[in-house]
């Protein structure tokens, strides 16, 4: 399969603290990869390397290369705005803009100057359908996004993220603020989206990693301990630290 | 970053930089005139002389009477405002029904929005005559009435900021305390007030600073007589009122009298500067704790 994302000897520092230690990781196209690991092991940090959201953080420093489709995304001549168009992100807490549902979805297009009404309408419908939200909101697209329930908001955020037609979707604990029912809806959605996107999901919920991902990467103290098929990780992990973590015998 | 963004940032940054210019302007203005002033009046005299008579023929330039007046009115104001303000804050935060607290708070804040000339008018025409009924020998212009009204003015400053600080204490802490079987009073004084102590301190210091810099109330109701006294019943003069007094007359630019207001101004500036920085320091500590 095509290697969509590749990290080569990546190290990350926040000022003096070394939070990602020499990580090599390849992610295949159209797969779901879960990042698991104890709190503070660097999952979020590593995830945010892929769309350079870490650049906003003071004291952040990176070594090594992050390639998307074989191209280093930290190159000088690459515009970070363009990168982020290609690499969508969904956050832990649903964070719709305080605007209408419609405007939320088209936000990514509008900031790029797309104004064609038909195109926008089409995009809204397509993305909301893909996000399994269309049926629930099609009659009130002009309603404020804040009036939606938490689970709906999160699916709206996913719809918004896929409106710019990214090829990669990053999700940082996308369901940890949701109740079980909304969670399972979002998980379904992830499952369905993987035919079109390369998805990376950070999760604290081991069961979730089991349910949604094809591959699982276990991080510990900034190291990538093990990355293998989720089935393997959950039935017969190679590293004893992984086994201890997933069986809850840790620390 | 592209060019337009850079431009925007430049403009915004310039606006921010302007605030530095203001400070420099104030410092320069005060200092340059004060330097000339202190070249004529020795600074030791300024700090130790117990009389302030720049407009008399026998001129004395001792800041102490003005300082005493300033501190006296401020003290009276805080003496009234602190207990009342703090009690209000706790009451609104812990006891009052939400809807009541919600509607009463903006009304209380109106106390702080009333222009100070208006308070001056009240002090002079309502409070002092009223107090004269109890305190024989209370002068028509006095520190007590002015200070009391000033206290009313700064009540909301204390109650609002303190309540904000109390409110910022996570709801979970209150629930924890109630869950342990504490009464509201115990919760307020053993958990909330200590947790919000930095914020409350900030509010008090800011209130003092405000009282020290207050002008119109004292200008109208406290008289304009520089007295070195702790007696609240007699007329006094504060640093601010002195400046007003001089400004009212058409004092020629460049005269010594003109410069006295800058000397007085720099004293006031130093005083409030110190207070502000104490509160700033507290606020920083407070913010760190609740991150």
């Amino acid at each position, binding site marked *: 399969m095509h290697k969509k994302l590749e990290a080569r000897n990546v190290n990350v520092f926040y000022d003096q603290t070394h939070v990602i230690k020499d990580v090599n990781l390849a992610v295949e196209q159209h797969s779901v990869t879960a990042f698991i690991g104890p709190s503070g092991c660097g999952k979020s940090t590593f995830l945010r390397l892929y769309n350079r959201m870490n650049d906003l953080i*003071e004291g952040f420093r990176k070594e090594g290369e992050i390639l998307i489709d074989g191209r280093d995304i930290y190159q000088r001549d690459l515009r970070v705005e363009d990168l982020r168009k290609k690499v969508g992100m969904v956050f832990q807490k649903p964070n719709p803009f*305080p605007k209408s549902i419609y405007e939320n979805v088209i936000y990514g297009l509008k900031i790029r100057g797309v104004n064609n009404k038909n195109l926008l309408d089409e995009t809204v419908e397509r993305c909301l359908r893909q996000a399994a939200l269309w049926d629930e909101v099609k009659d009130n697209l002009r309603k404020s996004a804040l009036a939606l329930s938490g689970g709906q908001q999160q699916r709206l955020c996913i719809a918004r993220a896929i409106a710019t037609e990214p090829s990669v979707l990053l999700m940082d604990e996308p369901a940890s603020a949701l109740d079980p029912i909304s969670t399972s809806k979002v998980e379904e959605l992830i499952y369905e989206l993987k035919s079109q996107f390369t998805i990376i999901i950070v999760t604290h919920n081991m069961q979730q990693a089991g349910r949604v991902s094809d591959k699982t990467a276990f991080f510990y103290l900034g190291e990538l301990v093990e990355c293998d098929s989720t089935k393997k990780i959950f039935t017969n992990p190679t590293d004893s630290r992984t086994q201890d973590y997933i069986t809850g015998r840790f620390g | *970053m592209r060019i337009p963004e850079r431009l925007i940032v430049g403009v915004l*940054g310039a606006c921010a930089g302007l*605030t530095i210019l203001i400070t420099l302007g104030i410092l320069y203005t005060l200092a340059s005139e004060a330097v000339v002033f202190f070249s004529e009046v020795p600074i030791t005299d300024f700090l130790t002389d117990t009389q302030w008579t720049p407009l008399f023929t026998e001129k004395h330039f001792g800041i102490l009477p003005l300082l005493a007046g300033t501190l006296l009115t401020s003290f009276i104001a805080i003496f009234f405002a602190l207990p009342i303000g703090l009690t209000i804050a706790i009451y609104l935060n812990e006891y009052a029904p939400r809807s009541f607290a919600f509607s*009463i708070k903006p009304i209380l804040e109106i106390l702080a929005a*009333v222009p100070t000339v208006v308070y001056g008018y009240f002090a002079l025409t309502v409070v002092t005559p009223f107090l004269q009924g109890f305190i024989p020998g209370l002068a028509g212009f006095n520190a007590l009435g002015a200070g009391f009204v000033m206290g009313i003015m700064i009540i909301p400053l204390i109650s609002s900021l303190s309540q904000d600080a109390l409110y910022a204490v996570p709801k979970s802490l209150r629930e924890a305390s109630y869950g342990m079987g504490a009464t509201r009073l115990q919760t307020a004084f053993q958990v909330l007030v200590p947790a919000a102590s930095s914020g409350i301190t900030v509010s008090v210091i800011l209130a003092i600073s405000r009282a020290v810099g207050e002008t119109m109330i004292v200008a109208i109701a406290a008289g304009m007589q520089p007295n070195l006294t702790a007696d609240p019943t007699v007329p006094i003069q504060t640093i601010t009122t002195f400046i007003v007094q001089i400004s009212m007359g058409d004092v020629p630019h460049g005269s010594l009298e003109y410069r006295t207001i800058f000397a007085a101004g720099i004293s006031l500036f130093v005083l409030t500067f110190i207070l502000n920085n104490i509160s700033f320091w507290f606020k920083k500590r407070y913010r760190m704790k609740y991150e």
Partner: protein
Amino acid sequence: MNKVTANRIKDQAFRAFGLFCTLFGLIMLAVFVGDVVLKGIGRIDLDFLTNLPSRFPERAGIFTALMGTCWILFLTAAIAIPVGVSAGLYLEEYGRKNRFANLVEINITNLAGIPSIIYGLLGLELFVRTLKLGQSVLAGALTLALLILPIIIVATRESVRAVPKSLREASLAMGATKWQTIWLQVLPASVGGILTGVILALSRAVGEAAPLIVVGALAYVPFAPSSPMDEFSVLPIQIFNWVSRPQQGFITNSAAAIIILLMVTFLMNGVAIFFRNRWQRRVKW
């Protein structure tokens, strides 16, 4: 009586005391306002509003002062709002890391605490004398603008800061530039707070007398200002002037003027509170 009972009694006693304190401030305000209305309401008529100042209490009006206040309000707003909001945005959005911003931050905290009369001294030296604007509306407005600048900056920063990080991240992650994020998300989300701050700041400016006295606004100005360079008076100064006179007629006049001034400030505060409440209720994340 056991400990728990004692605690309950203390609790109830404090409740009563708290209610008393809360009402105390309001009662005082009511007494004051009642007093001033009783004394001044009879004096308010069209003549009072349109007459020029006079040596005779019965003929004196507040026209020039009222117009001066309007001029001051308008000019101050025009100067302070753009500068203040811009500075606030810069500090909160761009200037987080550099030392310049740090300096500005400490500086603004200090500026906010400097007594208004000191701004008067600055205005006197800078605008009136150095820039030779004289004792004009413009000089007064500039002075007041400087005075309320920190308030606007702080209000802007606070409402901008209240915009959750998640909203900013959402926009940035969509590929928006920083300015797009600010313009499309942060500003709209914080406009309510900024507006509230601005109105409160202006209402403060309307009530200020001390700095304008120092700058040289005069109690007696024969005509309403017709350009920024004219001399002017404002309501608070007019009141100060009247209240300082011994005649009872002028005291009545001042009470009447106070009614007008209070109406203006209460109105502005009311609007600000309205904005704040609506904004708080509408935006919840």
